[in-house]
């Protein structure tokens, strides 16, 4: 079995939440494996984070270089290429950084790439058995991946729960900064532009009426607004509603929008993609109304209703108003 590596995203002085999820993912590939963490950065808290990782990972590789101060995937790819063995199996989180880094890394390593993995079913010879989803989670597939020449595997964040009893690996940190090589690239990081603040702060809302593509038309947004008003809730939405400019970006729930922590979340005509659900924290009571009985959201909600939201929402609004 090839050596297993986990790339730890280190940004703004801390390791990403997914850092310890990757060990759990690795254990599903090879239960007995010692997984090596790889952390890149430039000074600051890099050593602290490496030491933190050594509590959970048997070995930690540190790559310290000025060019790595901000995790620019183009730069990180070059460094990893110079430091890691081509036939290794490298686990990376499938977030906006992993999506940027990994496909190209697999090509440069001459290894295989699989994106957005939700589960592993072990290794059979040189075949890694993988489970992933397609069509926004509507269907699931078994995928066989030939790992004989190594692999880059992007793991969906939030799926592999970190082991709470961690912290006793007693791992060591190896400094491989000297091996990073030339890190000049054709893409240079400039700055971060923070998301705009909107008229309501949905991250503070206790009750959200959230609309998805099932709302069908801009004119129907007010049907959701009326329900929200009757409930004393705020209106939020999924990404396609913002893409169409029907609501402001500040009302978008999800990994590329806001992270909300309401008591009650009403998902109206939302299919339940992981990027959307990734923005809902604190285990709220989730009500899903969707006209497709097989919509993935029904696996994730507490209560499900198979109805057309354009009929259902006005009726619910009337009843609540009449109380």
């Amino acid at each position, binding site marked *: 079995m090839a050596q297993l590596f986990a790339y730890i995203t280190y940004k703004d002085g801390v390791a990403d939440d997914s850092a310890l999820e990757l060990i759990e993912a690795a254990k599903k590939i090879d239960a007995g494996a010692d997984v090596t963490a790889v952390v890149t950065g430039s000074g600051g808290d890099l050593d602290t984070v490496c030491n933190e990782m050594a509590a959970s990972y048997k070995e930690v590789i540190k790559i310290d270089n000025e060019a790595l101060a901000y995790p620019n995937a183009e730069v990180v790819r070059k460094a990893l290429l110079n430091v890691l063995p081509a036939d290794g199996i490298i686990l990376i989180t499938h977030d906006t950084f992993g999506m*940027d880094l990994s*496909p190209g890394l697999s090509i440069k390593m001459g290894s295989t790439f699989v994106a957005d993995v939700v589960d592993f079913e072990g290794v059979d010879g040189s075949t890694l058995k993988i489970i992933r989803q397609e069509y926004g989670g*509507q269907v699931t597939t078994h995928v*066989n991946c030939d790992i004989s020449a190594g692999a880059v595997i992007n793991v969906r964040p939030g799926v592999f729960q970190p082991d709470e009893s961690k912290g006793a690996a007693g791992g060591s940190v190896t400094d491989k900064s000297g091996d990073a090589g030339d890190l000049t690239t054709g893409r240079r990081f400039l700055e971060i532009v923070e998301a705009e603040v909107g008229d309501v702060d949905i991250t503070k809302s206790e009750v959200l009426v959230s609309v998805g593509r099932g709302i069908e038309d801009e004119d129907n947004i007010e049907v959701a607004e009326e329900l929200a008003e009757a409930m004393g809730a705020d209106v939020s939405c999924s990404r396609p509603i913002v893409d169409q400019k029907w609501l402001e970006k500040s009302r978008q729930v999800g990994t590329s929008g806001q992270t909300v922590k309401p008591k009650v979340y009403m998902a109206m005509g939302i299919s339940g993609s992981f990027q959307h659900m990734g923005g809902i924290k604190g285990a709220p009571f989730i009500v899903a109304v969707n006209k497709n009985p097989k919509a993935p959201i029904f696996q994730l*909600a507490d209560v499900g209703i*198979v*109805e057309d939201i354009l009929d259902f929402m006005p009726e619910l609004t009337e009843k609540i108003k009449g109380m």
Partner: protein
Amino acid sequence: MEILVCVKRVPDNEENEIEVSADGSDIDRSDIVYSVNEWDNYAVEEAIQLVDEHGGSVTVVTVGDDESDEILRREMAMGANNGLLLKDDAFNGSDGKGISTILKSAAEKGNYDLIMTGAQADDGAGQVGGMLAALLDYPYASLVNKVEVMDDKKLKVGREIEGGNQELNEIDLPCVLSIQTGINEPRYVGIRGIRKVASVDIPSMGASDLGLAGDAVGDGAAKVKKVDYFVPELGEGAEMLEGDTDEIIDKLIELLKAKGGLK
């Protein structure tokens, strides 16, 4: 600026409820409506706007079959200048690397300053752009939600990252960008527009035209293989409220009251 945009014909997520076929070998394609991958329309729109402002031309390319012709025409009706269909039995069964290898050969036949893809398509992998860039040895930026031409050698691009924040980068040309939805508002294409390009000749290229060895792509070269589609055994899922709408609403209101959902 010469721009190549890679597009894909996919089952339309908005029009279809996707289900596993009876034997699990595929999705059930009996009543599927196809269209251009959602992300690709944003890429084509961005390319058209760049060319409108800075000159040049937009070519849309797809690895597909005869039916893919319709999506190339749709994108040409939007305003893309040329279409290119990459079609060969030898391409069947390609994995992401195979598709990227085919596209790379096509890209090398032209003289493109900028290559764009959608950020992802129906299988949610988001891999072709990054692989294509690596194969061409071009710089790459994914999830791009802003493109600004700085001069004829570089662009300023915004990448959408977590929390809706934007990461600004400077990137050298030629490069590959994968485009995120919301970067622009893709123009509407009417029947009239489609009719205008209905008889335009769209060239097609196969493995030999591209100088590709038959075993470099397709099923034989694929190291990632889909075995089947299935319905996973999941936990209990939601408690489904049933009955007529009135009953459902009464039950829901009780639940909402108990959970603090009504003020």
